């Protein structure tokens, strides 16, 4: 670990100022569950760390609103996962938090920090001697010809096929979440779907926040599809593992039992949170059957570009989406 300047702030304004003062090599510290890891590995070598975990403006969440659910960026994953209203009315959101990391990590990690957690690609985290354009731009991508079981089927480029690992953002993207940010230029909002970038030629740039901007809140529009939602996560063990593939599905059924509103996203297989409109399209207007669920899964994985060891995720992902559709359908209010 390298020496760094440490500043603890109490308000959002102080945080914005401190971040601006510290310059482009500064990092925000909230739960520390990712940043400290990466600093120990010297994948992250910030010159300054601005600790926002006590900033009251970022804390808390409110799931009781008529129009939207509001989540402070500093809310703890465990607290939100346990929220009774969220579990009942938006099970996919709650499940995406429950199935992430471990209880100890969820007690520390924040919703805002979780959105920007970095990839688990072993060539990224392994440091030397592995080529990685994300860690060391221009050095190449060792994953392309390597052990790519954990790498992306969607959204990759010649430069990078690292998977975006988060569960929470995968669920949020299905719900058309908005992200509020605050920076030197004031406050603005952007759709969660536009928060993360595909790697393209610059995989080191992972998000669309301007320098000095801080995520303050995540807002989710209220929808009856929340009740009929599910987050299914398939992984190498039953807890404390990232997704091999995951699926977030939210839907409503009309009076004839046909899918009306429909939202589907997949995780563990793409370079950013990956909404799959084609799968939604395939399902909408149909009753939920083995065949229609399967068709939605197949639509979700159309156009996948597998590598050497991850092609199985096309079939696995197809089935995971289909299972999530059936589970969501069983929860949906007709």
């Amino acid at each position, binding site marked *: *670990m*390298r*020496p760094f300047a440490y500043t603890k702030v109490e308000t959002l304004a102080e945080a914005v100022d401190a971040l601006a003062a510290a310059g482009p090599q500064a990092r925000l510290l909230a739960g520390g569950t990712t940043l400290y890891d990466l600093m*120990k590995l*010297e994948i992250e070598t910030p010159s300054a760390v601005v600790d926002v975990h006590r900033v009251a403006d970022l804390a808390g969440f409110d799931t009781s609103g008529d129009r939207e659910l509001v989540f402070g960026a500093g809310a703890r994953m465990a607290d939100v996962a346990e929220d009774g209203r969220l579990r009942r009315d938006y099970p996919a959101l709650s499940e995406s938090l429950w199935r992430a990391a471990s209880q100890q990590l969820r007690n520390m990690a924040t919703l805002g920090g979780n959105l920007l957690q970095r990839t*688990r690609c*072993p*060539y990224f*985290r*392994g440091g*030397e*001697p*592995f080529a990685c354009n994300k860690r060391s731009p221009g050095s190449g991508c*060792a994953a392309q*010809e*390597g*052990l790519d079981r954990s790498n992306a089927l969607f959204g990759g480029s010649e430069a990078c096929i690292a998977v975006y690992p988060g569960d929470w953002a995968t669920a949020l993207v299905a719900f058309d979440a908005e992200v509020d940010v605050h920076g030197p230029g004031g406050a603005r909002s952007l759709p969660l779907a536009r928060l993360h970038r595909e790697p393209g030629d610059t995989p080191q740039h992972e998000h669309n926040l301007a320098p000095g901007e801080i995520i303050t809140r995540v807002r989710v529009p209220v929808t009856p599809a929340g009740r009929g939602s599910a987050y299914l996560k*398939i992984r*190498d*063990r*039953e*807890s*404390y*593992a*990232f997704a*091999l593939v995951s699926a977030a599905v939210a839907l409503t059924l009309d009076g004839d039992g046909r899918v009306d509103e429909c939202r589907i996203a997949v995780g563990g297989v793409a370079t950013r949170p990956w909404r799959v409109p084609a799968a939604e399209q395939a399902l909408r207007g149909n009753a939920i059957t083995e065949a229609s669920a*399967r068709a939605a899964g197949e639509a979700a994985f159309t156009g996948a570009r597998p590598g050497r060891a991850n092609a*199985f995720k096309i*079939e*696995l992902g*197809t*089935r*995971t989406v*289909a*299972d999530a559709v059936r589970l969501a359908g069983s929860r949906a209010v007709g």
Partner: protein
Amino acid sequence: MSPEPQDTQPVDTRRVDAREKVTGAALYATDLHPDQLAHATLATATIGRGRIAELDVSAAAAVPGVLLVLSHLDHLDLQSPGFVMGGGYGVQSLQPLLDDRIAYRGQAIALVVAETLTAATEAANLVRARYETEPFAATLDSPGVERLSQPATIPLPFLADLDVGDAESAYATAALHVDATYDQPAQHQNPMELIGATVSWRGDTLVVHEGTQNAGAIRHGLAQQLGIDAANVEVISPYTGGGFGQKNSLQIHIGPLALAARRLGRPVKLVVSRAQLFHHTSFRPASRHRIRLGADEHGRMVAAIHEVEHQTSRHDLFPLMYTEITSRLYGIRDFRGRQTFARMDTQSPGFMRAPFEHPAAFAFESAVDELAYAAHRDPLEFRLANDTTVDPVSGEPFSSRHLAQCLRRGAKRFGWSARQQRPASMRAEDGSLVGWGVAVGAYPASIVPSAAHLVAGADGRIRVEVDGHEMGQGIRSTIAILVAENLGIGVHDVDIVVGDTRVATQHLTAGSWGTASTLGAVHAALRALREQLGMDTRGPVDVASAVRATGRDQVEARAETLGPGQTEQDAEHARKGLPTLSGPEFPGYSTFSWIAHFVEVRVEPTTCRIRVPRVVSVADCGRVASPVTAASQVRGGIVWGIGASLREAGAVDPRYGGFLNNSLEEYPVPVNADIGTLDVDFIGEPDLRFHPVGVKGLGEVSMVGVAAAVANAVFHATGVRHRRLPIRIEDVLAGTTA
């Protein structure tokens, strides 16, 4: 107050050091923070093989707080400790930091010592090396692997090929055949306690605190490395936070730490990081097994041929002993075993729990299952029909073999009679495919020279100083129970010192010989103590009164014991810190521990996740020396078997060598949520022919056969046979339709 004799009270069998462990009162080697402590870290090589053309430590040395950087540039006065399986003491013979050669990725190239761990870590990352690279091989399938027949390379009797009868002919003429190849990947022990040491000098005496299974090897190995008298090395290891074979010898960092501590005149501590652990020390080598089994028309197995190769390093030959148990599982008349080294560019592999027996049993017991199906026989009934009471290799009887009873009792507990033979024929209510599998395991019994020193105090307490190590298996509990039962005192009136070269020779504790060997010595010392106290040879003792009656403050008794057939020459060998095994063939009999495992798997019909809701295991380990820790050992062995069969593999990118998934995130050991009901039972028949107290080994055999039982259950659930571990989602998925 002296404790009352309690001959009618049952002995408290709870783990005697549980409170210390769960409260943190038990101090492990790297929990120590002596005054003036300096912190060390390692810089490691990034190439698969070659040499260091240029090493630049200037940036590292310039980090504030850095005290010392040691590398091959310093011409360290350090000898190789030799390989523990080659007559030496080390985890491998190659001692890094002595020259510019790089034998494997992850090899240490510099030791950095600093005032703080943070400074040492920063500095280690600033060590810069320029390498000249050479081609290397890192997997069994890589070009450049050198294959050597074991008996031709090491002509020692216990490593010879096995040829009992004429297996080739018997196989050729058999009515039913199985011919299949099974793959076991490299796996890593990953004990919770990381490897590390706190090292200091007291005058000319080197004091080493390290969690180890082999304080004796550290002592004598360091003496050899540093050219000092072994009497001037003290190794203290009261607790080891899991060894699993990885802590069975002198690690490569202790010699350099000793040099650093001497140069600085300060204690130095190193904790090897989890990431570095995957290259720092031993691992389970990848192995490949071709099994050919033949049976007659009645389903009697008549021939077995087990050919196996496993990886070893270029610098050491880690021996293969896979056929030792596969030749004894059944009464197969004709057996042939062939074992081959596959040398490649890794650190030396070594012992990991059930090192040979787990992969061997996975292969062999999978093949037996295949043969049972080929013969249209129930796999349990097929196994029972091929049982034996005689060791087919030596022709001598087994001192005890209750394997059939393990199978019968396990089947009853499991409810095996409700099993339908046809694969993919059983379903759970939720639609999951249900599979029931069985497999057996064995582990050779050994006894090593041991020593115990008992001190009976006028306060009625007994102090036991003994040759043996505590690495979680519960040696203190087994000793306390033995002493308490023998004398009729409470277990907490017994103070136990283990893992300490200041009080006793410390032979390697491994291979499931620890309990038998240590209890043998304690048992003999108890006899001597009773003699000293003028007591009967049995029955409760009022220790305090008996001691006071002698007019002394305390009464001491010593015993040194040997394995059956061992001589004073063996004792002398052991005193040098060298492994000194007897068994499993003893004069007139052979001794093995036995186990039967019954596993239920459920395979999700869509996403093909494999769950293991329940396992029933019944072990024959002779007398159960400590019921609580024994059951815990078996549960741990089952969990290891589940990890080995469904989760764990060291991932090798052949372009880079070494292991890619060097974290507990990417090397997925099972978590609690992966484990269902584990039902453990014991036959509990003492083996008094083998041992004065009747105990055989348990820790290793508990894992043997679990992987085969899991794989056999997956076959039963799905109809697809998996011959490569671990069995993962994609493997099962490939065999199913949408």
